[in-house]
């Protein structure tokens, strides 16, 4: 049992989660602060007979994992802001061609090369809309290493269930901080395996004809069914089409398969929310400081609680609206200019009661930073 307890970086917790989930192929390119994921996997994957490749850039890394997913493998890549920008093109391809894959973005400060070794949560909207065109996307995050592990496994499960790319949006503090991780025993967290077609050889297999539940059974490249995969709008054979009905139906399918399952995809944690007048909403490493504030003020009689979001996209509209219904004020704690703030304001009944507690200087947001904002919001002065 003791070998299951580790003292690791968040990046290592992500690696442990990916291996637990059944990762078989990783392609990546070095970039701070995610590099440890590639380093560790170059060591660990061949030990279980699986493969790692360092590609020439992040465009190629994202492309390579899509290719490897099509041969029937669970795949992942990892990067940070600038590399994530380069991945957007192939990420859109994975959306369009419905390729299960996991993309880790350990966020640093941007835009551009930005502040590579410091923390930020500035890529929340890039995760949502970084690639062009209408689409839905799944993005998960976590505030501690046990949850990094769990959300990584969840990411693989969602990728396989919905045939979609899943973005794991961690940040520099989580990636590099060391803390305890208990690796669950095999079977403790259920794993979703790829849904493969039951159609026999010689019978027509339609790779892009969804079942009634919206899922599309796959056939591995190299097996008996030969079909076309493309980034163009395509019919049930995977063949390019500009038929308006085909185009309409496909974009609806791509969006609906995610948006109709928001409840299943939503992961969150709640702390002391039942009677909370002050509701903090946070995610990733900043949720640690937010929780600290809650645990500090509760014993002093303040009715304060925390909603920690773990699924950022699709945004859990109903959950946030309900949580904020009876709050006097809502404070979104994040390390950007208010990217989740605008989502919260969009979904609550009274947007004017939603405030922002943030830092945008590459320095980790502290409980004191949050309390200073709270005092202003509560009219207590600075």
């Amino acid at each position, binding site marked *: 049992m003791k070998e299951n307890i580790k003292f690791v970086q968040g990046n290592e917790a992500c690696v442990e989660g990916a291996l637990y989930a059944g990762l078989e192929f990783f392609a990546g390119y070095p970039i701070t602060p995610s590099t440890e994921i590639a380093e560790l996997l170059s060591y660990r994957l061949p030990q279980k*007979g699986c493969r790692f490749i360092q590609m020439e850039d992040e465009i190629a890394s994202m492309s390579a994992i899509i290719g490897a997913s099509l041969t029937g493998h669970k795949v992942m890549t990892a990067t940070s802001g600038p590399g994530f920008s380069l991945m957007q093109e192939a990420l859109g391809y994975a959306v369009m061609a419905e390729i299960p894959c996991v993309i880790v973005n350990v966020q640093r400060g941007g835009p551009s090369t930005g502040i590579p070794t410091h923390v930020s949560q500035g890529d929340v909207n890039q995760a949502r809309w970084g690639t062009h065109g209408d689409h839905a996307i799944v993005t998960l995050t976590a505030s501690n290493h046990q949850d990094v592990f769990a959300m990584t496994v969840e990411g693989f499960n969602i990728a396989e269930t919905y045939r979609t790319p899943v973005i794991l949006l961690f940040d520099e503090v989580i990636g590099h901080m060391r803390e305890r991780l208990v690796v669950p025993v095999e079977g403790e967290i259920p794993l979703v395996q790829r849904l493969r077609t039951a159609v026999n050889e010689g019978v027509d297999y339609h790779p892009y004809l969804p079942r009634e539940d919206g899922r599309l059974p796959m056939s591995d490249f190299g097996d008996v069914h030969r079909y*076309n995969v493309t980034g163009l709008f395509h019919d049930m054979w995977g063949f390019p089409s500009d038929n308006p009905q085909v185009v309409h139906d496909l974009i609806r399918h791509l969006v609906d398969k995610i948006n109709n399952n928001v409840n299943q995809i939503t992961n969150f944690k709640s702390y002391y929310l039942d009677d909370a007048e002050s509701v903090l909403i946070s995610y990733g490493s900043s949720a640690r400081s937010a929780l600290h504030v809650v645990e500090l003020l509760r014993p002093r009689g303040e009715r304060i609680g925390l909603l920690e979001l773990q699924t950022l996209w699709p945004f859990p509209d109903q959950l946030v609206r309900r949580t904020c219904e009876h709050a006097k004020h809502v404070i979104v704690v994040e390390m950007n200019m208010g990217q989740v703030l605008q989502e919260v304001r969009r979904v609550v009944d009274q947007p004017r009661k939603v405030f922002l507690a943030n830092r945008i200087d590459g320095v980790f947001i502290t409980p004191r930073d949050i309390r200073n904002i709270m005092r202003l919001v509560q009219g207590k002065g600075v």
Partner: protein
Amino acid sequence: MAIKDYIRERFFPHIWCPGCGHGTVMNSLLRAIESLGMSKNEIVMVSGIGCSSRISGYVDFHTLHTIHGRALAFATGVKLSRPELNLIVPMGDGDALAIGGNHFIHAARRNIDITAIVMNNRIYGMTGGQFSPLSGYGTMATTAPYSNIDHAFDTVELAIAAGATFVARSTSYHVKQLSKILRDAILHEGFSVVEVLSQCPTYFGRKNRLGSAVDMMEQYKNDTTPIGSKAKKENPDLIERGIFVQKEMPEYCVEYDKIIEKAMKGN
């Protein structure tokens, strides 16, 4: 198996213009595959974007029509994750060497067992005739209305310098040679590059007053010569055809298998 058994007739007619060389390249490729007696299930064709890349839709293999320039990167993922498959990657000259140039040299450097075919028509055809990295100095294109001042790559020299272990060139006129070269390229264990001069009468031909498709093929006949021929010594402007490099070097997936063996021993 007959040639037509390798084709997805359901998806015809194809999109290529009358006189385009790409159909001839596809025909030569399918004849090469037929002569090898390969099963359709063991072939994966990966292509990018452009006229050439549409080949993948018309052939009855596992086919992956990807994004502009990235075909070799996708193919690398397919090959390394399932090395027993045969990877064939047809690309255009802009696809392979402009937007995809980085992937091209690095796939060559790794010597991963992929057959890369550069269908060189010296133009971006699908977007309507802009100059490509192989158009060459002095040519005309819709984005070089006063004549092109960009110099061209020599695909063969680039591939050799980058480490490709099989490098050849032929044309859409020399179909028998082309088919044999493609056969050798598929059989070669390592990264193979075959440059095929393939005419685009619609854009490159018209802009540069080269005449009909037949005229352009006639020029391939007159302007090329076998590697090391007497004619080349007398006229250095002739373009050489044939196999320039064919050498044994450790292949990437085979090397990775050794890494796996090493890693598993250490466990």
